[in-house]
């Protein structure tokens, strides 16, 4: 039988990001392969996506904290196909960040058989190239894994998607 398709991230040129003053520190850190999250400099609570005001105390002052890169799957879906990329397999996920309580990321679990992902699966951050020279935080299942045997050569997918046409 065919080996299950491993989930990947969208190819670099299919993903554009734009920044504003609130969000730019997040992306600048990601470009240095660091995962950071903003917390309120007054009340200390984390929030994502980065935004101009703390929703708890309305302060505009922000601290940026470097995170461990650990996460857990809060919920996820399995998507086969994307406009222009009919054969791609994606596992878009909402993840909790244990060292930024209250903040979540919408991201991808990559290099995994979708059948091996469930709510609560522990993850570790990685960084995937997107257009404009930016890097996108994505996540891999934290090893050791009890996955089924992988197709040889499939682990070198990291950041190597096919171009979108």
């Amino acid at each position, binding site marked *: 039988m065919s080996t299950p398709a491993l989930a990947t991230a969208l190819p670099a040129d299919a993903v554009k990001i734009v920044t504003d003053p609130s969000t730019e520190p997040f992306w600048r850190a990601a470009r240095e392969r660091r995962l950071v999250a903003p917390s309120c400099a007054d009340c200390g609570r984390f929030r994502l996506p980065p935004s101009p005001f703390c929703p708890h105390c309305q302060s505009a002052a922000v601290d940026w904290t470097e995170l461990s890169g650990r996460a857990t799957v809060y*919920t996820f879906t399995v*998507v086969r196909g994307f406009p222009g990329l009919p054969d791609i397999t994606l596992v878009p996920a909402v993840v909790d960040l244990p060292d930024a309580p209250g903040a979540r990321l919408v991201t991808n679990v990559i290099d995994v058989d979708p059948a091996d992902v469930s709510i609560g699966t522990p993850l570790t951050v990685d960084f995937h190239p997107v257009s404009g020279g930016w890097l996108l935080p994505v996540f891999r299942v934290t090893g050791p894994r009890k996955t089924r045997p992988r197709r040889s050569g499939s682990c070198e997918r990291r950041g190597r998607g096919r171009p979108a046409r």
Partner: protein
Amino acid sequence: MARDTGVRDVAIAGIGATPYYKRGETAGQSITRLAGEAILAACADAGVSVTDVDGLAFYSLARAGYGEQMEAGELVETLGMRELKFSAALTGGGGGSAGAIGLARAAIVAGDASVVVTVMALQQQTRLGTVVATKAVTPVSSFVQPSGLAGPGHLMSLLTRRHMYQYGTTRDAFAEIAISTRRNALSRPKARYREPLTREQYFAARMIADPLCLYDFCLETEGAVAIVTTSIERARDLRQPPVPVVAAAHGGTREWGRAFSWFGMPDDETFASSGNKPIADRLYARAGITAKDIDVALIYDHFTPMVLMQLEDYGFCEKGEGGPFVLSGAIRYTPERKPGSIAVNTHGGQLSEAYVIGATHIMEGVEQLRGTAVNQVAGAELALVTGGPSAIPNSGLILGRDR
């Protein structure tokens, strides 16, 4: 019979629609043509001249679907309305559909306008199913778009999986919603799908965003629907029996906020919900009734699990019990209302009749209360119409019979 204590100061006097088309079929028509056809039909139904329309109460920012726009000035000039005295739109998207009738009421009660039209025209020039992937990226959407969540169903599949995890909900429940809605469409002349849907077909369908398959998604149709609202006194002098607005509400709490445009809902119960509970509470308080008093529920059905979560939020069953509730057969249409059950989307909804961003649900509510619905609930006195689930505002509307 329920004696509500709702406002009943305005009423829906007319409804009208174009035929419903499949995606791409209206390419040769303009948005103004589609919207105008629906408005003229609604005015004819009400027995008012379009020249007397002096208010426009839109939702979804007066967008015609997700890319195109309805223009008040163009409608006024093209249709020959004499003078526009009120023109406003609820913000957000489909969440405001039912609430737009509340906006019309606001204009009438304030004395700003007297004959107010709500209209939605939909052409899928921007294809809805992939709208998230194709919209221009913004600093905020840069945190969602890269994940490949291409359309609304992809976003809502994430809420659905949490509901299944937290409450043990199964795909059988979603199948029942798709199948029971299809049953209601079979007898509808205008419905896009008029063949029965079987469990086998449902479970054999392709997965689009697991756990959501093809039949969990609403249709990608085109067409327009318009609704004429006026004061209850004036409505009594018009052609149709007035259908009073018993209560209308829109909005939502901070916890829901952007909802699945971001997924910031902090607690599990809110996350795996439709975000409509605050609307439901406000609506029932204003009407002085509970879910038990509703005779027919027109529930915004863009995706089957969101029907289930709205049934919970609107109090037809307990939170988390939506799965067993629908699997008991409680939402199936029968001409006589049975205790403990509620006929849902008697018109075939957006899953099987046509998707016009919530507007067909308002129309069906009106027909049920006039007593002229194809799948009439005998003696229906109160109908619930919902908008959303979507980012704030969500909305709800309770319509009644004049007395």
